[in-house]
């Protein structure tokens, strides 16, 4: 049993379980699954903006979303700390070689410690990845009206053409970054 909880799950198990989130939150209280609205709730909760975009009852409208988020943090603790997989991720060796050539050295965890540490925050690469990366995710998610959960999972499940366009956008941006910009950043 412990093995089952520490081992990585194959896509054909993990994918469908993630998909169950859509009916689960609909059946609990008729909510359409999405995650990135939490950023909006947080900015609204901080009370730093007078913009009407943040002028709504985040306690009432955002409650389910924020509680779900707290659960996700807890799930991360259970899955990534309590039942952490002791082995490195079984990546394609081609990817490992390509990233090594770009200067990534540590492949032991979920993220490269070359970039994802407090000390790396002082380096140009760390600043760019952690701050600019996070900023673009927050900006783009709200601009597009949803993120991977709201558009790629919920929206495509509901056959929404807008979500398909958004997901195409996700890949345009992702491909440009992975193939054209990242090699320059890491070199």
């Amino acid at each position, binding site marked *: 049993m412990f093995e089952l909880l520490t081992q990585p799950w194959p896509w054909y198990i993990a*994918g469908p379980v993630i998909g169950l989130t859509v009916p689960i939150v609909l059946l*609990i209280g*008729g909510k359409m699954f999405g995650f990135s609205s939490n950023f909006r709730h947080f900015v609204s909760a901080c009370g730093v903006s007078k913009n009407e975009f943040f002028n709504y009852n985040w306690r009432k409208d955002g409650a389910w979303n924020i509680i779900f988020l707290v659960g996700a943090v807890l*799930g991360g603790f259970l899955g990534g700390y309590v039942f952490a997989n002791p082995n490195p991720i079984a990546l394609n060796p081609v990817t490992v070689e390509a990233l090594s050539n770009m200067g990534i050295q540590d492949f032991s965890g979920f993220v490269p410690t070359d970039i994802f540490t407090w000390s790396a925050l002082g380096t140009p690469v760390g600043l760019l990845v952690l701050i600019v990366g996070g900023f673009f995710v927050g900006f783009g*998610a709200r*601009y597009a009206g949803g993120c*991977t959960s709201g558009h790629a999972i919920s929206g495509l499940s509901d056959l929404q053409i807008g979500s398909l366009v958004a997901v195409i956008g996700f890949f345009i941006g992702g491909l440009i970054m992975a193939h054209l910009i990242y090699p320059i950043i890491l070199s």
Partner: protein
Amino acid sequence: MKAKDFILYLLAGTLFGFVLMKAEVVSWFRIQEMFRFESFHMFGVIGGAIVVGMISLQVIKRLNVKDKDGNPIKISPKDSTQMKRYIIGGTFFGLGWALLGACPGPMFVLLGSGLTIMIVPILAGMAGTWAYAALKDKLPH
């Protein structure tokens, strides 16, 4: 919110975070591998999620399934008149997704796994959301 709803949403989120971790989709490496088309894994996970989501939505719509409190479930379509926002906003999101190697859910799931540095992109994500609101009227939608 009722205590029952609180617990159910918390459990749903916990399951979501746990599976995201076990599926390794919160990994920066997996995201790079996906955008380099060097593994089927991520596509299988997202595709599998969509198939289950799609079947569930069809069942809920066709059988007029009610939520647990007996209220009708209303699924609002996305606004299909604003295509510019989807393609431009989506491209910004994709740039950030590949750069950070995490989308909003995984940022918080990784934080839960003990990766405290994720607080930085989370705050940056809030700043990005604030910037969108500030620029909203000037951006093409």
